[in-house]
């Protein structure tokens, strides 16, 4: 989804639910399992990938995806018809995942998380050069580890804003806190990451030694 400046992406598109979605939700509320399965089919992949960003574990992400939709199915009465179904279920997914991670206490190292670092522009290093590639790979690995090591409140804000492309307002809505809190957490998360990765960042900024 890219950087946060691109806007809130999917979440803005969910602002006005389309009529077919409304019909499916209404049918599901009336007990239609088929309607709910159709809704789940529409969103389960996106929800799965969002959860995977937090857990970094495909098995846990699969279990939590199922748990999210089951919880949503049981709680259909609390869903307000005017709201977007995806936004609602997204909030359930993030909250379930946060609770899971809190209970787990410590997070597993990722086993299947890859990144694409093809086109990063680094001053002083020609794109695609072996030196630049090596530095970017090293920085990317370190960044993933550093993000994993952030305290959960900072990490959740960072993932929602930077990875999921949410605005502070959207992230605050999902996390149940104020925009100002998200802003402060983003600042602290960036500061912690910068402090931890400073040697690598300085190296990248000043080019190959």
């Amino acid at each position: 989804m890219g950087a946060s400046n691109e806007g809130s992406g999917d979440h803005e598109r969910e602002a006005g639910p389309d009529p077919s979605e409304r019909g499916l939700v209404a049918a599901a509320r009336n007990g239609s399992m088929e309607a709910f399965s159709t809704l789940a089919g529409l969103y389960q992949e996106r929800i799965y990938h969002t959860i995977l960003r937090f857990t970094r574990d495909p098995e846990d992400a699969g279990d939590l995806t199922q748990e999210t939709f089951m919880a949503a199915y049981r709680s259909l009465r609390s869903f307000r018809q005017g709201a977007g179904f995806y936004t609602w279920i997204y909030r359930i997914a993030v909250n379930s995942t946060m609770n899971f991670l809190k209970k787990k206490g410590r997070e597993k190292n990722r086993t299947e998380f890859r990144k694409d670092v093809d086109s990063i522009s680094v001053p002083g290093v020609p794109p695609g050069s072996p030196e630049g590639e090596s530095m970017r790979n090293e920085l990317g690995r370190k960044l993933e580890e550093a993000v994993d090591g952030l305290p959960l409140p900072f990490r959740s804000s960072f993932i929602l804003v930077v990875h999921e492309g949410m605005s502070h307002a959207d992230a605050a809505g999902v996390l149940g806190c104020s925009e100002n809190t998200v802003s402060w957490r983003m600042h602290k998360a960036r500061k912690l990451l910068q402090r931890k990765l400073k040697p690598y960042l300085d190296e990248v900024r000043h080019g190959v030694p």
Partner: protein
Amino acid sequence: MACRKYERWISDDMDGRLSDKRRAALRRHLEECEGCRSYKENLKILQAEAGKFREVAVRAGFMDALGRRLEEGLRSGPAAGSAKTIPLAGRWKWVWAGAAVFVLALAGGTILLLRPKTPPDLWPVSYEESLARVLGEIGEDADLAESFDQVLQASIGETLLQAENPTFWEGLGEDEIRLMELDITNGREI
């Protein structure tokens, strides 16, 4: 100290949350502050790297399998919108609580109905009523009046002996003090 403020503004600016006025102030600060310029450059690299994280490609059929798992879960699980339904155990809890209240109320009512009647002359009475009754019984009987006075004076004497408070006298009325004087002087006026 001022740089802390600008570091937060740099973060807000990256998320498109900084006002025009603050952005202008930040720009002026960055022109002067090498440390903040360096900090901003580092954050830009972090942002670019983090923004490159991509979704993991799931293996073929994974999502279908996930969908089937979900459908099985829906079929075997509770019905839609059932989260607010009180589970059976919860309902029984209220039934038992209601039964306990009923039994207690029944027992209390039975005790009230079956308790022995207290004779009217044993009912507790106030001090004034009690004194009035004693005085009424004494009436014109001089012997009884004298006995009553003696009892009264004796009780005052006991109180006086027990009183360790030097300001005890201050709490007595005029009549009580006079009675004590008479008692001390064996009936002679001072």
